[in-house]
């Protein structure tokens, strides 16, 4: 089913009335595609059918939040960023008690899994606390199991080699039937929490936030609001990493951050 502007506005209105949440804070065309996909997969005959469902189904908000969380698709995406992180930033986490690394709006886990492997290889797995938050309780439930999507496994391994990973990539996983699971030894210092990144949160000892390619699905204003929430938790000198094509050039002053590595989109909290 193809949705037009009017239909999407009707859906937004119905969702806002029920949940007090503005789905219109998402990029319009992205929202259109995700809603079309959800409506088609769930065999709604028409828009009225779907609107009735919104009124009656209590799970619809969670379902849509999951739908709108795009899977991270690949481990060690942009291998040069991970190399830079390993060689230049990881050192700032050493010998720091209670150093925390935050993954807001985690979805399928590839970013988290890559980071945990990197921590393990650098003997930091027991020293760094990792906070994983997501607005979707379904995503959190999956993340806790450590299941790696098998579809992209070969690509993950290729990226790991490009990152100059030194080990046998497969040794980090258990292959059980058709499932691939990250070893649970990596999860010792990981905390999971349901939280929507547009709501305030206090994260203590935050040294690094990895929030790559999450805000690109939001409207301009909403992006700024979300990034403001995130950077307010960073302490001076700590890092924020965004996606390679995210643009915050005009907000650096307001967010109290400076460009640390322009190409890899790594930013550092400053005291202005």
């Amino acid at each position, binding site marked *: 089913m193809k949705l037009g502007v009017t239909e999407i506005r009707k859906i937004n209105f119905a969702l806002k009335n029920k949940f007090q949440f503005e789905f219109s804070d998402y990029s319009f065309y992205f929202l259109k595609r995700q809603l079309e996909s959800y409506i088609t997969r769930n065999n709604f005959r028409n828009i009225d059918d779907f609107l009735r469902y919104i009124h009656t189904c209590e799970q619809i908000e969670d379902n849509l939040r999951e739908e709108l969380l795009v899977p991270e698709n690949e481990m060690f995406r942009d291998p040069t960023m991970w190399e830079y992180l390993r060689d230049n930033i990881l050192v700032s986490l050493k010998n720091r008690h209670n150093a925390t690394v935050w993954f807001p709006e985690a979805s399928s886990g590839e970013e988290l899994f890559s980071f945990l492997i990197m921590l393990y290889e650098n003997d930091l797995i027991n020293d760094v606390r990792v906070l994983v938050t997501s607005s979707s309780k379904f995503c959190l439930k999956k993340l806790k199991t450590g299941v790696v999507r098998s579809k992209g496994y070969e690509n993950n391994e290729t990226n790991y080699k490009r990152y100059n990973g030194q080990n046998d990539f497969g040794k980090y996983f258990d292959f059980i039937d058709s499932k691939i699971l990250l070893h649970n030894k990596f999860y010792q210092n990981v905390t999971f929490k349901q939280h929507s990144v547009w709501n305030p949160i206090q994260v203590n000892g935050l040294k690094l936030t990895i929030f790559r*390619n999450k805000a*690109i699905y939001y409207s301009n204003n909403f992006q700024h609001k979300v990034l403001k929430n995130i950077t307010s938790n960073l302490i001076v000198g700590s890092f924020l990493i965004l996606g390679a094509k995210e643009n915050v050039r005009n907000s650096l002053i307001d967010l109290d951050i400076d460009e640390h590595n322009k190409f890899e989109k790594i930013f550092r909290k400053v005291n202005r």
Partner: protein
Amino acid sequence: MNDKIIVIGGSAGSFQIITKILSELPKKFPYPIFLCLHRLKHVRTGFIEALTIKSNLNVIEPEDKVHIKSGNIYLAPANYHMYLELGNIISLSTEPAVNHSRPAIDLTFSSAAFNYKTKVVGIILSGANRDGANGIADVHKEGGITIAQSLEECQVRTMPEAAINATEIDYVYTSDEIISYLLKL
């Protein structure tokens, strides 16, 4: 905003045609051009430099949410889908590959069709899969102009052939004819 926007999709065998088109367009070409070309996802530099050498116009790999300007050429970045959004904005996306491709031509074309309707000129060049066929069908449905590269000229004909089979294509042109058409817009 612009009277026209040009969206061009290509894959295997399209690079030479793209550089030929870019080299023929004048500095003051008045419309924005969006290039969605299949490319190696892990190679983030080099491609735009190769296109810039041949182009009289400004070639940009857009960041997310940049405003569209006439006369710029926007190249879909490696490993991102590129959408045209309401409000003359470009959005990027890391959603799963479509037609085994990210960037996917279908997504760029369909978003252009949805937001710009009759203003769109969609051009499908040489390529080895069916990406772009659904997108150019959307351009046609919304009243835009559809062009496919001539099958005789294509290095790989699968992509323009799929476009021709998917919808009513307004013009099947050689690269010289495509250039001539764009210069007359």
